[in-house]
């Protein structure tokens, strides 16, 4: 096989990997605060993209995306206030079940607000057939947007969680809710905030992914499955690792297509995930002792 072809497979892997990576980031935020997996994360992705597509005829693309991110963040906060905060005894299991219910609810709502048709945002730069040539192989310019936005989100979230008082309070909630409450952190507010941020990141991901993967009312679940896989592979709670794992997952899938029929692509990815998780239960980049500190 020529080196150009190998590079083309790699770029194919990076393309789908960048989609998984940017979706994966959102999972970590709710997890970092509450220790739960938000199964409605895929629906935030769908909602953000659908909202931006509806707003786009009335305003420039960046404004439509910004507004869609804000609207989805508000929906995220609202969802938490209405459904999760009202749980009498919010155990991890109950919260997870509520998020599964929410995902179904949001999907059906989207079907009624919009319809079943497939839509997409325009490419941020270039169009459907433009591509960047790298050493004889090609990649869509949208991939650079995905990587850039992914990197920016990870950096900003990292700074926020590490240095701002709010971010540190959110991490404290994740470590130990009771202790966090004792030192005066309003833990419920932190949970609401984490849903709002997760929804905002999800919406941004949805907008960036839309030109490549296209958007329809139930596109959230398949995206979320891949994003979740990447998040677990990287080690939950770490946004940077999620991005790296997403790209790795994409590259693995593309590499598998070289040797086996494309039909087995997902099977190969899942197999790798199982092997890695059995060897390193806390994820590829997660630390074992860190995982042990979490209470479930």
């Amino acid at each position: 096989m020529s080196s150009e072809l190998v590079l083309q497979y790699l770029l194919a892997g990076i393309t789908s990997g960048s989609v998984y990576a940017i979706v994966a980031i959102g999972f970590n935020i709710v997890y970092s605060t509450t220790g739960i997996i938000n199964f409605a994360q895929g629906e935030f992705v769908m909602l953000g993209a659908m909202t931006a597509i509806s707003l786009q005829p009335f305003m420039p693309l960046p404004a439509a995306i910004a507004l869609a991110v804000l609207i989805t963040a508000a929906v995220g906060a609202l969802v938490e206030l209405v459904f999760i905060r009202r749980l009498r005894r919010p155990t991890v299991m109950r919260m997870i079940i509520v998020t599964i219910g929410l995902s179904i609810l949001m999907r059906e709502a989207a079907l009624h607000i919009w319809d079943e048709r497939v839509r997409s945002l325009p490419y941020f730069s270039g169009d459907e057939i433009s591509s960047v040539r790298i050493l004889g192989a090609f990649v869509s310019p949208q991939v650079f947007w995905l990587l850039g936005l992914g990197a920016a989100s990870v950096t900003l979230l990292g700074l926020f969680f590490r240095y701002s008082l709010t971010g540190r309070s959110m991490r404290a909630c994740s470590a130990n809710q009771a202790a966090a409450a004792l030192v005066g952190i309003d833990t419920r507010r932190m949970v609401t905030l984490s849903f709002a941020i997760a929804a905002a990141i999800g919406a941004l991901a949805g907008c960036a992914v839309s030109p490549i993967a296209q958007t329809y009312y139930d596109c959230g679940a398949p995206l979320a499955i891949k994003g979740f896989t990447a998040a677990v592979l990287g080690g939950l709670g770490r946004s940077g690792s999620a991005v790296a794992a997403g790209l790795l997952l994409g590259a693995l899938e593309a590499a598998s297509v070289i040797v086996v029929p494309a039909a087995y692509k997902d099977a190969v990815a899942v197999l790798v995930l199982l092997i890695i998780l059995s060897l390193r239960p806390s994820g590829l980049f997660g630390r074992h002792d860190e995982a042990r500190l979490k209470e479930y």
Partner: protein
Amino acid sequence: MKIKTIIAMAALTGLAAPAFATDAGTVKIGALFSVTGPASFLGAPEKRTAEMLVEQINARGGIHGKRIILIVKDTGGSPEKAISMAKQLIEEEQVFAIIGPSTSGETMKIKGLCEESKTLLVSCAAAEDIVKPVARYVFKTPQTDADATRRIFEVLKARKLTRIAALSSNTGFGAAGKKQLETLAPDYGVAIVANETYDKNATDLTDVATKVKAAGVQAVVNWSIEPAQSIVAKNLRQIGLAIPLFQSHGFGNLSYVTAAGRAAEGIIFPCGRLLVADVLPAEHAQKALLMKYKTDYESRYKPDAVSTFGGHAYDAILILAKAVETAGADRDKARDAIERIQGLVGTAGIFNFSATDHCGLTKDAFEMLTVKNGRFVLYAD
């Protein structure tokens, strides 16, 4: 415009002659459509179309004074739901006939059920298995996969393209198309060099496109009904493959063209004539009916554009209406009447049924179309 409408009205009076008689009873028709779920792009326009056409027929006084009652059930594309809903329609509602389901998988699950209970079933799904072998009470309105494949191979042969890549999605529709492509390729001297199946929820198919590029083929035939068919078009162009791309009749929905944008230009696919109704010559037998359906649908369900899938529901009701008109609302007599239908102009083509042919269409029902400036036009070599 007005003249066209008058012609169209004239064409339709044949099937549902305005009856001035008072209420002569009702005809209950059940409909199983996947209005939501993964096959909603089939079921949703089918539901809209069926509701519109039934309303139109009833507004004209029904069929010989018999009003149609349409009961639509949403299967969500699930064969299990289709079975239980079919049972409800047959046992509780005691319907005269069932139209739908939208997908071949669902239809095959209820084929036996309708046959046993002697309920007429006019399916809106394409697979050949639905009418082969013939079941006495089961009919279908879409053209068959095999005919679509033949039309594609005819173009490949005419353009001397002999090495192709066959791509399909992991759905019933994709699998059926893949099977037809593999079976018929040798008849046309075509070699399938790369043969790949991909996930129906795929978000990007650059890797599959790369495999196609590595195989060094002269053309690509893609068989799927999901957004993937737009994604595949984009990815092939993005990696610099400019070879002809053929799609199945599942591409007959303008939203896929919009989604693929410039990458959709030049895609060739077989399709019923509905999508090119406006450029058909005025004397074409289907012109008046197609234009009426298109204008009615698009003015009522704006901004939704008409699609061939909705047309399958249109044809199903036309066929049932014709049967009731000639034989009355008796299931067995109506069944015999359908087998005698000749030259019935529908949206998918001109139907000629017989005791051995419960589809009634030939490969001439397909026209080869291509995309030019974001619109569907007739393909010319």
